[in-house]
Each structure stands twice: as structure tokens, then as C-alpha cells.
């Protein structure tokens, strides 16, 4: 915020109240996270509960609970303004960019924190250098083909190009190696299935099947998912503690999945995308048009086109495998889910909902003057070259040879089809 203040004070446009509002929003926007964060949101989505997005819960906590009391000295309506920022009810500005943008405080914070907590050596950023080269600049924004006007946003100086590359690449690598790691996602899949089942049973008056008592926080939440007090009573330790109570109960899913999570006996993961890529051998295809007569440029053009065709063919094959696995599971329905599918995509920039413009990019000034900032991805060959990280995985019991055979067979058949 000091970068914003320095810039706006120079042009007599500094708004102290907005700055306080944005800083408060940056501090409290994650309060609404439930146990195991995003996996818990998935439970809300599956069951159409009000906590399918943590920002919704954060907004309620800030408006209605003790947080609003704490924010009262800052002015009447202050708490509501804070909530408005992460409920998208406030127009994007340089103040809201601190809370939510491609270069927001949250990302700069969690990238460093998660590296520390997981011990990974990926995702290192030059935080000091990025901040010392951070300025405010004006960029156009709009909807579809129509320009709406100009907005202030964060712009990096020319000396920060490599630091910006490292920031974007680091974030991308953290997704591949931490947030979307196969073991993390495998545990999250089990967690979601387990909690969905607990809530369903509790709401169908079958609490005894869960192994939990009537007044366990998880059961109270299942009965009243919109009651903030019930929601606040849940955290990671409440769920971890409940696993032993649920292990060994009559309901097969509750018993099996809670034991797996407690004892870390996760499902085996097969990376559909990786398997197909290994099997179809598109890259070494004998049908390639590259021959001794091709010039260097022609070779490059054909190689790029072949690579795009390979990626497209892979995407189709992944979808076909996923579709066939879902159909197979439906036809062979058993007490326990035999497979759990995981699909996810993460591009170099966090995806935007409607607009795709400078406000959704990392902007950089290449010259030393006041020249127009440009998208880092348009000037960095490294960033330009990065395809979205795509996840297509299937999880199943590692002792289940029948399911393994079906998975292998479907992947083999689709890989063959891909080659044809």
C-alpha cells in the first residue's frame, strides 16, 4: 500500500479510507475458510450449501460477527465496505488490486509461506526486488470489444522483467508440485467424499451410521450448514479427531475413507494424461512431414503444428478416458466408489471470468519513460511458452486389480485410437 500511497499522494488522489478498507480486506478475506480449505468448499458445491466459496463465509463473518465489532472504530459501514471488496461489489481500483489481482498481497504472501511450510525449493521469488520496482500505472479496461475507460493498476519497472518471470513461473510450479500434487489431491478427494456422506447421513436421520454423536460439531454443521456458529466450530483438528470415531463404523464409505485418511493409506493415482502421452508416441510419429528436404523454418513450423496437434489429441483422449471411466463406474456401481477422478487446469495467469485485458495480466514498462505498459507474457519468451498445467487423474484402491485392469485397458485403447 505504500507504493500506492506514494503514487497517489503525488497527484493528490490518495484516499485514506479506501486504503484502510483494502488493507482490512487483505487481512480478513480468508477468515471464511473451513477445515481443509478448498476441499471443504467442494463439499459445499456438491451439496449446494451456502459455504461453497470461502469469501461468502468471510463476508458474513465480517458483517455479522465479532469481526464487525472490531472494525467499528474505523467507521460505520466500514465492515460492510471491507466485505464488498471480496464479494466483487466494489469497482476494481488500485486499492482493490492489493486484495485481488494477478499481483495481490495474498499471492505474494502465500507463495513464500507455502514454500516454507512444505519445504519445497520451487517458487522462490525476489520479493524485495519486485516491490522496489513496483509502480502504479493506467491501463484500459472494457467488456467484450467495448472500452470502458482506464484504471490504475500495478505496473513493474523495466529492471523487474526477470523477477516477474520468476514470480509467474514460481507460482505455476507451486501449483504443479504443491497445490495440485497427486497425493494432496488424492487426500482431498477422499475428504470430500467422506464429508459429503457424513452430511447426507446426518440430514437423513442416520447419524448412528457416521459413528459421531448428535452434538459433534460435524453433525451440528450438517443439520444447520448456514449457521455461522456451527461453521466456526469446525477446523482441521475437529475433522482429524473425528476420523478415529468414524473408522470401523457400519457404513462402508465412512469407515473405509476415514481409516484411509487417518492412516494415510491413500488411493493409488494413475495420471491419465501422462500415461496417454507415453503410450501414443505422437512426438516420434513416423507420419511426420519433416523430411530431409525441409528447410529450417519449415521444420520449425511443422514441429510447432505437430506439438499443438499432439496437445489437442491428448486433451480429446483424456476426455474420452474420463467419460468411459465414469460410464464404467455407473454400470458397476458398488458400495464404495471404485474410482475418483481429478480434473483441473491452471494457466500462467489466474483465469478471469469475462474480460481478458491488462487488469488480468502482469504489466511491465520496458522503457524508462512513461511508455505504455505491456503484458509480461507478451515480451517474455519463457512465459509465452508455458502451456496451462492440466490435471487428468484417476484414483483407486491400490489392491483393486479389477479396477486397475479396467483403467489400464481404457487408457491403452484410447492411446491406440489417438495413434490412428
Amino acid at each position: 500500500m505504500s507504493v500506492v500511497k506514494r503514487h497517489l499522494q503525488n497527484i493528490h488522489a490518495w484516499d485514506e479510507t479506501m486504503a484502510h478498507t483494502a488493507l482490512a480486506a487483505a487481512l480478513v478475506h480468508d477468515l471464511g475458510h473451513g477445515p481443509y480449505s478448498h476441499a471443504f468448499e467442494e463439499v459445499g458445491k456438491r451439496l449446494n450449501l451456502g459455504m461453497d466459496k470461502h469469501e461468502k463465509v468471510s463476508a458474513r463473518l465480517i458483517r455479522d460477527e465479532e469481526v464487525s465489532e472490531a472494525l467499528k472504530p474505523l467507521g460505520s459501514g466500514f465492515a460492510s465496505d471491507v466485505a464488498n471488496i471480496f464479494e466483487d461489489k466494489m469497482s476494481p481500483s488500485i486499492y482493490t488490486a492489493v486484495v485481488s489481482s494477478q499481483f495481490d498481497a495474498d499471492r505474494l504472501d502465500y507463495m513464500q509461506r507455502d514454500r516454507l511450510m512444505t519445504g519445497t525449493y520451487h517458487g522462490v521469488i525476489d520479493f524485495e526486488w519486485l516491490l522496489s520496482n513496483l509502480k502504479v500505472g493506467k491501463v484500459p479496461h472494457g467488456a467484450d470489444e467495448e472500452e470502458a475507460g482506464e484504471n490504475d493498476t500495478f505496473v513493474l519497472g523495466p529492471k523487474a522483467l526477470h523477477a516477474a518471470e520468476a514470480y509467474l513461473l514460481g507460482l505455476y510450479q507451486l501449483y504443479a508440485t504443491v497445490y495440485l500434487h497427486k497425493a494432496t489431491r488424492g487426500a482431498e478427494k477422499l475428504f470430500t467424499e467422506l464429508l459429503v456422506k457424513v452430511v447426507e447421513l446426518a440430514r437423513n436421520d442416520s447419524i448412528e451410521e457416521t459413528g459421531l454423536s448428535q452434538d459433534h460439531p460435524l453433525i451440528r454443521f450438517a443439520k444447520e450448514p448456514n449457521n455461522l456458529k456451527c461453521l466456526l466450530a469446525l477446523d482441521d483438528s475437529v475433522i482429524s479427531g473425528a476420523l478415529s470415531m468414524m473408522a470401523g463404523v457400519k457404513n462402508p464409505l465412512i469407515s473405509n475413507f476415514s481409516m484411509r485418511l487417518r492412516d494415510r493409506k491413500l488411493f493409488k493415482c494413475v495420471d491419465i494424461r501422462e500415461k496417454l502421452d507415453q503410450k501414443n508416441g505422437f512426438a516420434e510419429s513416423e507420419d511426420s512431414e519433416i523430411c530431409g528436404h525441409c528447410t529450417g523454418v519449415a521444420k520449425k513450423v511443422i514441429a510447432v503444428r505437430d506439438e499443438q496437434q499432439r496437445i489437442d489429441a491428448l486433451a480429446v483422449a483424456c476426455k474420452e478416458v474420463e467419460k468411459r471411466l465414469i460410464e464404467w463406474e455407473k454400470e458397476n456401481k458398488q458400495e464404495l466408489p471404485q474410482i475418483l477422478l481429478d480434473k483441473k487446469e491452471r494457466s500462467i495467469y489466474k483465469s478471469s471470468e469475462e474480460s481478458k485485458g491488462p487488469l488480468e495480466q502482469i504489466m511491465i514498462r520496458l522503457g524508462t519513460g512513461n511508455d505504455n505498459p505491456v503484458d509480461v507474457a507478451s515480451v517474455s519468451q519463457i512465459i509465452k511458452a508455458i502451456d496451462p498445467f492440466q490435471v487428468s487423474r484417476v484414483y483407486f484402491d491400490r489392491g483393486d486389480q479389477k479396477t486397475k485392469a479396467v483403467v489400464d485397458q481404457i487408457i491403452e485403447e484410447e492411446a491406440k485410437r489417438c495413434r490412428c
Partner: protein
Amino acid sequence: MPVLNRNKSNEENAADIIRDAGGQIVGRTRLQKMAYLLEITDLGCGFSFEYRHYGPFSEELANAIEEAKFWDLITEEEHIALWGGSYSIYKAAASAPLSGIDPARIELIQNAKDANPIELELAATAAFLKVVENDPDPWSETKRRKPEKAEKFLANAQVLYEKLRSVKTPKPLPAI
């Protein structure tokens, strides 16, 4: 909310919107706001919407569009706008609208298709504020939430809204 066709998949329903727009829609914003207006007039197919930066937005519809592209029900071309951002042109694989479609749906879609996207965004936002948030003064709240856009486009958005409201839909758009 009554649905147009629950037997169809989300991607088919998404592709139908583009088909009913004469086979082409320019822009994600237009598509999203058009679909929202269809839902609140009982001419939609059950997509759920929530409030985001650009007003009513359906993640279901956005995902359905991706699926529809994948299964060749529609195509998406990306173009660079003069203001520096990019926008999409969606084209349906199926041609002219099939018979048996409510003419009010076609008329509402046409009006939205021809509208300025920012005016449509403001009109759909005001409708959302009235229908979902029960706001007593949706235009003022729209102006508060989107001051820069409102300054230039709100007056025309109000005219557009009245034009959309004049379509004889099964459930009328609320008076604002």
C-alpha cells in the same frame, strides 16, 4: 424456475443460446448477461448465477461453453479489441433456430445480442440487484458498484432495459 429443456446437457443448452442468436454471439459478457436475462424471464434452461465483478455470472454456463467447444457444438475465436484486451466470438455448429422455440426467447436474445456489452452488463446487474438482492433502488446501487461504467453508459443501459422489458416474456422482467 421452469426450464427449457432439462433433457439436454449443459453444453447443449449453452450451444442452443448461440444457435438461437442466429448462430453467433460476440463476447463473453454478452453471452453471460443474455443467459441471465433468459433465466429470470423463464426462458432459460436452469443455469445458476451469482454476483461477480461484471454482474451476474454463471460458472456452470462458462464450464458448459468450454465443454460445448470441446465436443464441437460451438467454436470460439479470440480477437484483440482496440482497447487492448481480447474478446471471443462464439459460433454454433447447428444452423438456424429450430421450430417450436418461444418467439420471446428469440426476441430477447436478439435485443441482447445487438446491445452494447457494457450497457447490457449494467442492465443485467440492475435486474440481478432487484431480483436476487431485492434492492429498493437497483440503478443507484449499480452506479455505486460500477461508477466509471455508469458515468458513460448508465442512461443508455436504462433505455436498453426498458426495451428488453417490452418483450412479452413468460415472466416479465421486473420494473426498476
